[in-house]
């Protein structure tokens, strides 16, 4: 999605080329098309396009991909709700996202 770019150099995403078996699952599931399998290995071709949804890591059969594991999504309201919940010692419900 080239019309919408978010902050550069913030997304936490790592790919272990040694572990990668080139199955192409990451390339299939990524909603921002940032992976490309070439010569039997996946590579990240657009790191700044990553929104940390985690689909690639979830569908990597050899756990070669690491994505920001923090619970929740890129949503300011949700982050504020989790801060409030932390102060109150409760967990956030999964509504409203």
């Amino acid at each position, binding site marked *: *999605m080239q*019309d*919408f*770019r*978010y*902050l550069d150099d*913030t*997304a*936490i995403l790592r790919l272990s080329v040694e572990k990668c078996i080139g199955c192409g*699952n990451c390339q*299939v*599931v*990524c*909603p*921002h*098309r940032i992976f490309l399998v070439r010569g039997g290995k996946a590579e990240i071709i657009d790191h700044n*396009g*990553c*929104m*940390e*949804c*985690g*689909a690639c890591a*979830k*569908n990597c*059969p050899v756990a070669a991909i690491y994505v*920001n594991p*923090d619970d*929740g*999504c*890129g*949503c*300011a*309201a*949700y*982050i*504020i709700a989790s801060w409030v919940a932390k102060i109150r010692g409760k967990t956030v419900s*999964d*509504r*409203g*996202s």
Partner: protein
Amino acid sequence: MAAALTGRDRFGTIGARTGFARDDYKVTPGLYGLGEPKDDSAVLVTANYKLSFDALRQELSGMNVWILVVDTRGINVWCAAGKGTFSAEEIAYQVAKAELDRIVSHRQLLLPQLSANGVAAHRLKELCGFRGRFGPILAADLPKFLRTGEADEGMRTVTFTLAERAVLIPLEICMLWKQLTVAAVLFFFLSGISPNFFSPALAVNRGLLLILATLTAILAGAVATPLLLPWLPFRQFWLKGAIIGGLAALLLFTGLPAMPAIERLAILLWTSGCAAFLAMNFTGSTPFTSLSGVAREMRQGLIFQIGSALLALGCWVAGPFV
């Protein structure tokens, strides 16, 4: 099950989009037949959120397919997957419950691509005997996908068109009623503070001005910012909102009677700060903002928002005294 949406379905859509009784848009989980599916018909998996289910059955009208609705507690596909309720385990549970292996002869489930952040498709085989395959992002692309068996790059890329942004606006606004009511009470109280202790006339007249400024901020941050998103400068959402909010306040002044500079400053800061906050909250509705990025912009955005709000209210209360 019917493919066409009835008047009642459309009425329900309005409810779901505005947040009216928002928890009640659930579809009963389980297996549904659309048209006259046979044992070799495709099985499509979706969430038990009304809008997800409606999109699917509407786009597939005239086709014969099975729809397996999994229990995501009434949350849409992508958010449910993100929260872990739309998972391989849940799909396997529904497959077993519906005894799908006795209904269809093949062993393939078609999954929405946006469920991939919750569904480890390669684990489905061992969990329930069915293989998972990711279809396109949009239900609208399913007929072509089912015909050709392929999803091209366009079908696999998430979009955020003007129309896709516009449908989100009613909910952004309707979620604000509670805060707005609390704010209104505070506004009247703060606006009435005067050299004569408290003036009810000032409370009403000046309180209404603050409400007007807040409504302007909502228009700027929760309507204009989402609509104009790709054309506004800066990538941080709070900056986009702050600018639009500031401009909206300047526009508002042209329709208001003359007032002291300190009160103008208060209105400007309040509108800009509120619009920045609302715009920042819109990050949660977009399909491209990362958690790390939002956390980063919040560190700057919140300082601006809290700072400008406090300064605005300070100037506002000081107004009658200078």
